[in-house]
């Protein structure tokens, strides 16, 4: 890893995913299961390519529980301006993630627990997570709560003496409600607290005086995100999905995210979805495009600066009795407002998946 190391966000993702299959526990027979295989490719004009392979399997157990396990591999290749500025050649790297979850129905409540581990040459991470989900008021209302703990051990290539730790606690509270025959609304609050090493061991900040020093980020970070969503049916075979997220953290970043998706069912088994997404964030309090003199906290991470991005794309899905296929293509434009080495970049993201269930 030579470009940047980003704080682990992973645990909360699993909390969001687990209820989807926990929901089906009582409707499935022992031995029912499915296998998913997906391939995603991210490529941008800043010379970065990420190929992500994901295989996920799930199985209904002889008890009211569903077991799920996955393997994910990232293959990264980059010659971004970050690499050039760090006087490092083009690099390639693999990251491997293994995870397992179990979700069970206990006293009218879906309970899930899981474990994730991931590793690369200079980073090792372990996550445990638990989740609760309960339907109320004749299944008109669903309340979910999740917690995750992640421990990260961070190293630096070719430097066995460099060893840092980052500990992350995350919690998510969700509430969804059927408003009427055609409308579902939901609100989600995400809280994350991280303590430890947040910077990149490979990134250096050069001040106007010519002095280069390692990136210095605060040791703690508290992050809040609130997401509001409305999903509403349109006509006899389409829906519109509108989401807005407000995010703020203790480093002074404030961001807004808006997403609109339109999905249309074409016959018995084909769906097409068009989606647009926009994002804007203000810079962290300590982020500067250039530092006149050394400061207590300094960063060269453009993702802590002021920037916006906008993108959109289409997804096509086919669902058969046992087999399902999907293909997606998105384009994204990033505009960095206070990062001199890169004004903007264009990225293409494509993915395809196949699912077999029995």
């Amino acid at each position: 890893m030579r470009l940047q190391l980003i704080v682990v966000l992973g645990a909360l993702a699993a909390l969001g995913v687990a209820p989807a299959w926990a929901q089906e526990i009582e409707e499935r027979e022992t031995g029912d299961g499915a296998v998913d295989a997906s391939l995603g490719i991210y490529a941008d004009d800043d010379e970065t390519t990420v190929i992500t392979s994901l295989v996920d399997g799930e199985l209904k157990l002889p008890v009211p529980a569903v077991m799920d396990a996955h393997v994910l591999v990232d293959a990264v290749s980059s010659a971004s301006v970050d690499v050039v500025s760090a006087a490092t050649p083009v690099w390639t790297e693999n990251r491997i993630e293994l995870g397992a979850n179990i979700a069970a129905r206990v006293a009218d409540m879906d309970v899930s627990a899981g474990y994730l581990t991931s590793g690369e040459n200079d980073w090792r991470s372990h996550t445990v997570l638990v989740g609760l989900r309960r339907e109320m008021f004749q299944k008109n209302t669903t309340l979910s709560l999740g917690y995750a703990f992640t421990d990260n051990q961070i190293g630096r290539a070719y430097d066995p003496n460099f060893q840092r730790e980052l500990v992350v606690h995350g919690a998510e509270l969700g509430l969804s409600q059927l408003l009427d025959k055609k409308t579902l609304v939901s609100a989600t609050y995400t809280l994350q607290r991280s303590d430890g090493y947040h910077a990149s061991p490979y990134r250096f900040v050069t001040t106007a005086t010519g002095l280069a020093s390692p990136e210095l980020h605060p040791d703690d970070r508290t992050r809040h995100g609130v997401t509001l969503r409305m999903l509403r049916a349109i006509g006899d075979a389409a829906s519109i999905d509108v989401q807005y997220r407000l995010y703020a953290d203790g480093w002074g970043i404030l961001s807004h995210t808006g997403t609109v998706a339109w999905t249309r069912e074409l016959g018995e088994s084909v769906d097409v979805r068009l989606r647009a997404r926009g994002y804007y964030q203000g810079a962290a309090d300590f982020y500067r495009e250039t530092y006149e003199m050394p400061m207590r906290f300094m960063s060269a991470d453009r993702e802590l600066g002021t920037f916006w991005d906008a993108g959109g794309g289409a997804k096509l899905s086919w669902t058969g009795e046992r087999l399902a296929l999907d293909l997606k293509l998105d384009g994204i434009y990033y505009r960095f407002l206070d990062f001199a080495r890169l004004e903007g970049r264009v990225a293409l993201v494509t993915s395809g998946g196949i699912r077999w269930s029995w």
Partner: protein
Amino acid sequence: MKWVAVVLLLSVSCVQVRPHERAIHARRSMQAAGDPAEKKLDGHVEEYREGSIGGAGAGGGGCGCN
């Protein structure tokens, strides 16, 4: 904050859509949970390249990013 949550919960509980009225909610295009694999792949792109979290996350630790 606690009272806001209680009031919100009580207010939404007044809305009732009966089981036989949920045919539209059962459509493929109305499945709110979405595709877990797609969420995981999208998380790579969005949360590793933006400074924010929440709503839908990414997976695992480390980077796998640029």
